[in-house]
């Protein structure tokens, strides 16, 4: 079966007087509806790999395939459109727009996409917030929320356009243990709904709750406990 997302010899080198290799020839495939935790020491290239997979960054070498389709030829506008339609991002720091209420933050991707009418967008946003137990905070500004609430609001925003992929970069890094476990539980639930969830974390305990654990060191995959087989001709491989 064609993987939902696939890294093929993915390499990212930061140019400069002394070029820095962030990701070195990574081949990984992700099945639809899987929950993968990427871990590794600081500077191992976890976040860089996530940004490459999420179309936020351009690889120096190799490519990302989406449901078997290459993405290397896409221009910035097309990549932005892909992020809008197919990806939802959750970062360590919630990155909510501070002047907007929680509801308006969740509405933001939907308004950009423009597929739904005003009332449908509001209803969908409220349903997402309700599912994350955040409905009562819809009218609040991010500054009035706790850390856990902000991160749940960020997850609601990431889900706004019903993306196939959830890319979480250290989503629990700024949370206490209880909230961290709750966020990972939410991410696991999203995977069970059929979304492909990839979460970067340095917390091995949380990583253990994922379906699959990938470990990076110096930009290379050194461990993968549930590699996905790529059909012949898929161009990718597993570690």
């Amino acid at each position, binding site marked *: 079966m064609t993987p939902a997302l696939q890294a093929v010899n993915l390499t990212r080198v930061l140019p400069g007087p002394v070029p820095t290799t962030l990701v070195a020839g990574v081949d990984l495939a992700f099945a639809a509806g899987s929950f993968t935790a990427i871990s590794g020491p600081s500077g191992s290239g976890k*976040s860089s790999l996530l*940004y490459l997979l*999420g179309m*936020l*960054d351009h690889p120096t070498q190799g490519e990302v395939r989406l449901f078997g389709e290459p993405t290397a030829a896409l221009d*910035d*506008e097309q990549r*932005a*459109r*892909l*992020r*809008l*339609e197919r*990806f939802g*991002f959750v*970062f*360590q*720091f919630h*990155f*909510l*727009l*501070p*002047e*907007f209420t929680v509801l*308006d933050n969740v509405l*933001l*991707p939907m*308004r*950009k*996409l423009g597929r739904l009418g*005003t009332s449908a*967008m509001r209803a969908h946003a409220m349903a997402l917030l309700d599912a994350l137990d955040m409905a009562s905070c819809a009218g609040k500004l991010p500054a009035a929320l706790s850390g856990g609430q902000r991160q749940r609001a960020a997850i609601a*925003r990431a889900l706004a*356009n019903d993306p196939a992929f959830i890319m979480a*970069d*250290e989503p629990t*890094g700024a949370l206490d243990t209880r909230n961290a476990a709750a966020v990972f539980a939410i991410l696991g639930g999203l995977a069970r709904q059929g979304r492909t969830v990839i979460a970067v974390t340095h917390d091995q305990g949380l990583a253990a709750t994922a379906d699959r654990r990938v470990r990076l060191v110096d930009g290379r995959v050194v461990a993968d406990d549930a590699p996905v087989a790529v059909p012949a001709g898929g161009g990718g491989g597993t570690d």
Partner: protein
Amino acid sequence: MMPLPLAIALAHLSARKRQTLVSVLGVALGVGVFIAVGGLMQGFQGYFRSQIIETNPHILMTDEIRRPAPQPLQLLHPAAAVAISRILPRDPVRGISGAGAILAALDAMPGVAAAPTLRGQAILRRAGRDYAVTVLGIDVARELRVTNLTKDMVQGSLQALATQPNGLVLGQALAGKMGASLGDTVVAATSAGGEHGLRIVGLFNTGLEQQDQSIVYVPLAQQQSMQGRPRVVNEIHLKLADITRSIPTAAAIEGRFGFKTAPWEETYARVLSVFRLQNLVTYGATGSILLVAGFGIFNIISTVVLEKARDIAIMRSIGLAARDIVAVFLVEGLVVGVLGVLAGSGVGFGLATLMRQMPSPGATDPSQRLLVVQSVPLYGLAAGLALATALAAAWLPSRRAAQTDPLDVIRGAT
């Protein structure tokens, strides 16, 4: 639901109320001053122009020849390079030859009215003092078809010259200087010799100082007698039904009759060029206020771009394209510009209304107030300039915002 760029722009601006207010006030000041000063300038120039057009001929034919006829030496050596300078007109004095036939031909032209005039200098003498004036001898019946001077008459009438062979119509300002009034007699002396008693039958006030102080009107026959030039006219005044045709009509008439025929744009070219310079200085000065306001807009948007680097990064990661980010900040500039234009239009209207209450300095009529034009094109020009300035000021920071690499910000934050 309002468009996304507008919603984000309003959120950014409302979070910086004081800075936004200062920027809006800057634009408002520029727009207000532009409207008020531009209106004043247009009012003054429009009044001056209409007075020139109404009280003077649209086209003036004089007894001059722009290009002298070929001289005998040139005719003798047509292939040679012959240059002749300082060609002088023949004495005795010139005049428009065949004026009667020319007038008849001009009368036949549709939309053209013509009147013969003899222009000459004279000294008006009263109470032992002399006043140098330009005397226009006019055919009253014809002159009434080419001038609107009758509407500027404050006493007596221009028509009275038709029944008063030694009648004199002069400016109220000159009469005041001479201490003369309607019905008084003044003595006119010319270079042709002799003195002629003239009776004041009309006083006018055009508001144009040069006209009111130095131009007087007498019947054509009286002027011909005073100047010693019987049956001579040296000017033909023309009025057109369509003033916009003055230049081609003048060229056609000059081409047909040979005498210098100048449209009003040529006759008053110096005044019009002064107007152009005046406009350049005025609009340049008021426009520079808008430029300074533009720096204010640049400042606030640059600040927002710097402060909002994280928000820009998250918007990019969500899927907003670079042009969406440009749109957000351009809309911010536009919002400041539109608010400034609205407030500035109010300021401009208020200033213009205030100036309209002020007496016109130097006006002969003390009840005359400053003329300030308030027109849609003027407001439109001010708004257009302000919005263009706002957009230009927002463009650079918008581009910088769009070029923000979201990863730089996200990596920096994590």
